[in-house]
């Protein structure tokens, strides 16, 4: 019953007649009968807006929205400033498409140019692209950028999120390159293993590490970078962008490519998507970059303007020789990230990172006091792994109070294999009171 078609039946018939068709059957007679659907599709009756609203709200209400969240592991509960929604939801942004026609798309183009600049700034790299689907797929694309005729093996740290690894492996099944894992030891990449592996392999293309890594540990990126580049391979850092408010950025470390999940930059949790893959690199890699790039130029009067550029890399020009098949990416999510970073500014960028760090350290200390010990010795920022006598029991008790506790995971780094492990995450949204509440629940449980 619901429809967004403006033409009435009468108008349609009139238009059909005007162009020489009796009816819709006549119009569709170019399709062979054998190809057409017989009878009606088994779909429900269409609904009015009120009915749709009621039904979908009903489904939303069946889900649990936690009031207090201590789970990260790839999706982070950061604050989204009011301006982000208000601005991004402007329909000119929402209902436009890829800015192919630059003269009437300057707003979209400039917003992405600004986003590219901000991503390059926070990662300390020269240039960034217009966005990719999400962090994991951006990581897979970054690995591919490093491949050349002589170098095709992708090395990945065993301390990265297995969800990222899964996507890298899937892309590699397509592109037919080897993926090798460098094992983690004590919650960090085993440096000796990395050195040995790269030195023994003439075909090493790159090494990808996560920063902070899946266990929350901030690895010695400078040393890993030195080992990797020393062996002639490229160094890729998969970063939590807000951590770069505090931690040395990939540019300072000397990385070749920085990628990551842009979700913390003004996107919600959204049950996993749409998120935002960001990718930045050194200028020398410009023509290897996958996806859209926006560049500055001038119009016929000499006025500054922006266009899609260096398109000779892309699928619509290069077809089978393109650097990637990316067409639609996540432009609107990139717009949100741009608004977010403009809202918080350089001071907020640092403050947010400090808040996350301080709260996580406070929580870790409080958990330690009740016997839930850090699994790893390394420095951390806003995520950390602890032991737990019975993770299921604790997480259930927290859930009953509307709290999403950390993520239970199997950790191989603990001395006491009988203990469970939990990966905790704090953000600026977790107050001291919230943290103390978790500790109180844990005390009750154990």
């Amino acid at each position, binding site marked *: 019953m619901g429809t967004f078609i403006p033409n009435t039946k009468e108008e349609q018939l009139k238009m059909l007649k005007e162009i020489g068709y009796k009816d819709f059957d006549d119009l569709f007679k170019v399709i062979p009968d054998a190809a057409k659907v017989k009878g009606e599709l088994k779909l429900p009756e269409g609904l009015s807006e009120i009915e749709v609203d009621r039904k979908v709200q009903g489904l939303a209400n069946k889900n649990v929205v936690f009031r207090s969240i201590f789970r990260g592991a790839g999706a982070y509960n950061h604050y989204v400033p009011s301006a982000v929604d208000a601005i991004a*939801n402007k329909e000119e942004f929402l209902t436009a498409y890829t800015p192919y026609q630059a003269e009437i798309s300057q707003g979209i183009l400039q*917003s992405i140019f600004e986003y*590219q600049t901000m991503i390059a700034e926070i990662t300390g790299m020269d240039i960034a692209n217009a966005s990719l689907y999400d962090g994991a797929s951006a990581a897979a694309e970054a690995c591919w950028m490093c491949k050349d005729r002589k170098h095709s093996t992708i090395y990945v740290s065993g301390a990265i999120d297995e969800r990222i690894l899964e996507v890298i492996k899937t892309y590699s099944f397509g592109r037919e390159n080897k993926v090798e894992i460098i094992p983690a030891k004590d919650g960090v990449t085993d440096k000796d293993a990395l050195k040995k592996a790269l030195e023994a392999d003439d075909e090493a293309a790159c090494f990808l590490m996560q920063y902070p890594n899946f266990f929350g540990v901030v690895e010695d990126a400078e040393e890993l970078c030195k080992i990797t580049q020393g062996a002639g391979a490229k160094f890729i850092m998969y970063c939590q962008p807000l951590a770069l408010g505090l931690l040395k950025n990939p540019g300072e470390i000397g990385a070749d490519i920085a990628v990551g999940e842009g979700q913390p930059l003004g996107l919600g949790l959204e049950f996993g998507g749409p998120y935002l893959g960001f990718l930045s690199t050194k200028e020398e890699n410009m023509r290897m970059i996958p996806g859209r790039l926006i560049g500055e*130029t001038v119009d016929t009067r000499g006025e500054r303007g922006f266009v899609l550029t260096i398109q000779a890399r892309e699928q619509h020009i290069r077809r089978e020789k393109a650097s990637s098949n990316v067409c639609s990416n996540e432009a609107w999510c990139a717009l949100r990230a741009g608004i977010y970073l403009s809202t918080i*500014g350089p001071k*907020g960028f640092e403050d947010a990172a400090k808040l996350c760090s301080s709260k996580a350290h406070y929580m870790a200390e409080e958990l330690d006091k009740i016997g839930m010990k850090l699994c790893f010795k390394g420095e951390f920022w806003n995520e950390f792994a602890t032991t737990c006598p019975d993770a299921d029991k604790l997480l259930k008790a927290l859930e009953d109070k509307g709290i999403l506790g950390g993520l239970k995971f199997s950790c191989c780094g603990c001395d006491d294999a009988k203990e469970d492990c939990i990966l905790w995450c704090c953000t600026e949204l977790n107050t001291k009171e919230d943290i103390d509440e978790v500790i109180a629940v844990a005390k009750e449980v154990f």
Partner: protein
Amino acid sequence: MKLIFEKSIPGRGQDIFPACDVPEKLPKKDMLRKAKVNLPEISENEMGRHYTALAKRAHGVNDGFYPLGSCTMKHNPRINEKMANLPGFAKLHPLQPAHTVQGANELITELEEFLCEITGMDGVTFSPAAGAHGEFTGLLLIKAYHHDRGEAERNEILVPDAAHGTNPASATMAGYKSVTIKSNENGTVDLDDLKAHLGPKTAGLMLTNPNTVGLFDPNIMEITRLVHEAGGLCYYDGANLNAVIGIVRPADIGFDVIHMNLHKTFSTPHGGGGPGSGPCAYKDFLAPFAPGLTCKDGKEYKRAEKSIGNMTGFYGNFLVNVKAYTYLLTIGKDVATLAQNAVLNANYMQEKLKDIYPIAFDTTCMHEFVIGLDPIYRKTHVSALDVAKALLDYGIHPPTIYFPLIVHEALMIEPTETETKETLDEAIQAFREIYDKIFSAPESVQQAPQTTPVLRLDDTKAAREPHLRYKFD
């Protein structure tokens, strides 16, 4: 206009974050950043005005007619947005326990049923984030299938010369050699050329039907039969599904796997270039290879037995899927009305322009048609690009230009079903006026646009002297 960085004044800003309520504790000093990070320092008011100015320099479907061929720029219903923004969806952590996301799983399961019914397929993966990503996924399913059967030597994907650029690019990403199949004089697949290229190396065929010149291939059943006989699988590029939704089901005409662009056929907004969603539907025999984690029993997330892995970190672009689901609830079993009015609108425009503009293949089109401006260009030196730019001065977003590659000076027009006859008539009038100008004052067309915020931009300069970011002093 100024960049946001040029409006930045040191010390200005917005107060978002509270004072810290626990003792400050940071990672050790030698791990901390020393590099300066230039981000805008700007008040909320100034920032709001900046983006409002940018919005005014953008053109969305809500601003006016947007007949961008192959992109299906239909109306984006408001209810879709409202539903996707419900906290019960937008605030879900992707790693919440399965029993706390039953509504989300129910929604995805029901959407899967809808899409299976529409395509005739047996299962859907929502892991791909966009159309091209769905193509890549579908090709990996085909690859996994052949490998599983011990036929890894099948390494060629046949792609018609009229195909979207993403098709051959996706084939390369999947490790395939893409083999181009010629179009015949009617603009559809040349059967002899297809037969000549089929063989023991054929992994599959990628086809969009109706194709990119807007024609439904009358030999479609024959084409898919030939590919199957050669041992290949048939991939349907669902970018043009809006033309036949409810009228033709890809599975019924011999396709084994398909991606859909939820941001095209299923009305979710294009967002200035994403996020889209490109779910991939497949027949049962491909199910064991499907990517991603699904939670069909409502208890735990599982991966298919021989899964190719995953295309995105979690479950694809979930909120976009919520919008498409909302849309399908609204339309229901009347989905064929979408195709009907889309095809009617395209034919109406084609018919009203074909006396002056050369139509690439002058026959009943589907949801879009292609003008081949070449004969006019040869006479007047007014190009497809010039016509496109002239449309800007009428407040119309130009059609897709220089695509498909098999038509010279192509203008590919897709009005979609959500446009009124009046809008079409206005656009037809604009096209006709431009036609007159091509002959009476060609330079005025070649110098268009004149009313846009910037005039024609120097693409060559942009590519030769790349400036991809603002340079701070």
